[in-house]
């Protein structure tokens, strides 16, 4: 598959501190690429470098197969929509007037305004001054502005910031549907669950380093299930199965078997029952994405 964005050893230093460190991003065409990381991991800086807003200290960026440079900048920006950090707007103008400015600059016919306003469901507010908008409305306006002119690539930095739950759901569905219209989306977030719900591919960044990058399916393989046991005497059952050579693991006050076949589960339950231990529950558990993050970085990260 073609990559729409490729970066090669992309690095940005501020005051000798590497905020983004030798990043090799590969964003496949037609994907929703979830760019995941805690606050301050370097997500916004990376996105700003992809747009040429911030100049890299080292490395190379290729977008649509072209090297991002002063000469190719316009060519690339023409096919790109973006919402970085917080939405940009002119407060003394109405939402519609704000979009007209973008239309002029992007050379997009003004009839496209109604389409994008409909997509983000804010036709009713379009004539209100933006300074009177709620945070969620400004966010919607920012997304609408990014969608103007149906760009081939969309960069969205935490697009669901400030939205209510219904709004979050709407925007997620909107983003999920974009690849059908030939739009590749790079969406950043600090919420694993959110990326899980809309992305097809994932890159995880921590302290400027890319610590994981692959399809969401592969990420889920890291979250293979485990079988949690709850019995009348957990400690005794754990000792019993452990001496029987099974790979049981203790966790707080019960234990689990990691990624095992049905036969082994049956065997384990049988042994417990034979030893007179009552088995209350045998439940299959997905590893949470927090756990995956922990296993990838080897340290606790608050997300």
């Amino acid at each position, binding site marked *: 598959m073609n990559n729409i964005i490729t970066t090669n050893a992309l690095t940005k230093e501020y005051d000798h501190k590497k905020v983004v460190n030798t990043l090799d991003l590969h964003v496949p065409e037609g994907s929703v690429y979830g760019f995941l990381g805690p606050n301050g991991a370097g997500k916004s800086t990376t996105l*700003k470098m992809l*747009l040429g807003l*911030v100049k890299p200290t080292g490395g190379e960026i290729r977008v649509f197969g072209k090297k991002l440079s*002063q000469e190719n900048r316009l060519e690339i920006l*023409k096919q790109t929509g973006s919402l*970085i950090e*917080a939405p940009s707007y002119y407060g003394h*103008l109405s939402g519609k007037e704000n979009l007209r400015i973008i239309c002029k*600059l992007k050379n997009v016919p003004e009839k496209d305004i109604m389409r994008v306003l409909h997509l983000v469901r804010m036709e009713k507010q379009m004539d209100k001054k933006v300074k009177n908008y709620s945070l969620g409305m400004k966010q919607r306006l920012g997304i609408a502005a990014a969608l103007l002119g149906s760009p081939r690539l969309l960069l969205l930095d935490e697009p669901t910031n400030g939205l209510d739950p219904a709004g979050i759901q709407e925007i997620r569905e909107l983003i999920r549907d974009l690849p059908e219209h030939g739009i590749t989306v790079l969406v950043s977030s600090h919420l694993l669950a959110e990326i899980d719900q809309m992305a097809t591919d994932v890159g995880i960044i921590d302290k400027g380093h890319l610590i994981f990058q692959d399809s969401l399916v592969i990420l889920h393989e890291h979250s293979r299930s485990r079988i949690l046991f709850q019995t009348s005497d957990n400690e005794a059952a754990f000792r019993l199965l452990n001496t029987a050579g099974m790979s049981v693991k203790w966790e707080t006050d019960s234990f689990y078997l990691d990624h095992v076949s049905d036969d082994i589960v049956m065997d384990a339950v049988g042994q417990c029952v034979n030893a007179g231990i009552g088995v209350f529950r045998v439940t299959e558990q997905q590893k949470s994405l927090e756990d995956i993050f922990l296993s990838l970085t080897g340290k606790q990260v608050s997300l």
Partner: protein
Amino acid sequence: MLYRCIQAENLKLKHSVIYLAFLVIPIIPAIMGTFNYMQNLELLKSGWYSLWTQITLFYASFFYAPLIGIYCSYTWRLEHTHNNWNTFMSMPVSIVSSYLAKLVCIMKVTVLTQLWISILFFIGGKMCGLPGIFSPEIILWLLRGTLAAVTIASLQLLLSMLIRNFAIPIGIALFGSIAGMFMTNADLGNFWPYSLMMLGMNSNQNEDVLSSFAGTASFFASVILFFLLFFGCAVWWLRTKDVRS
């Protein structure tokens, strides 16, 4: 592309009261200058020329730069607030066009202000009962002043882009202009951008200060070089510096 950028700039300036300042402020020197001329008829004997110096001396030497500074600060304030730098710099238009669009809007205001002050000058002259129309020489001075004004505008636009505060560039403009008066008196006006307006408008004496060829040439050279310098600095800065917002 430039035309689209200018249209976008015009849209941004909707609903702002900025034009009011340009209508009101020049009226002050026009009234005062005319009044002062009437009071001192025994000293000021050169008719239209005397009135010209009375009306434009303070306008050209002290007030044009801060006035255009307000305008420059306002157009950049729009970008400095609410994260607009990100959008401003990620639109598919060249940096030169984006910047030039702002400059063109300011030139437009400058030209209108010059026109307005000349209309006020004419009305003032008629009210004092001056005969006929002012001499074409004064129109030449107005045009020269406009060129100098554009150079000052390009400096103010640069300052307001770099300094993210509304008022400081305006303060700099006033101090620069006052210093400009001294520079003009010390015959160093061509080396100080804020002096160029007064030289161009010829607003401190009746005879043309730039009557000699050398004087005219160095004035125009100075106007053009300063303009290129400020414009170049701005574009270089936009090209190479990171957007911070």
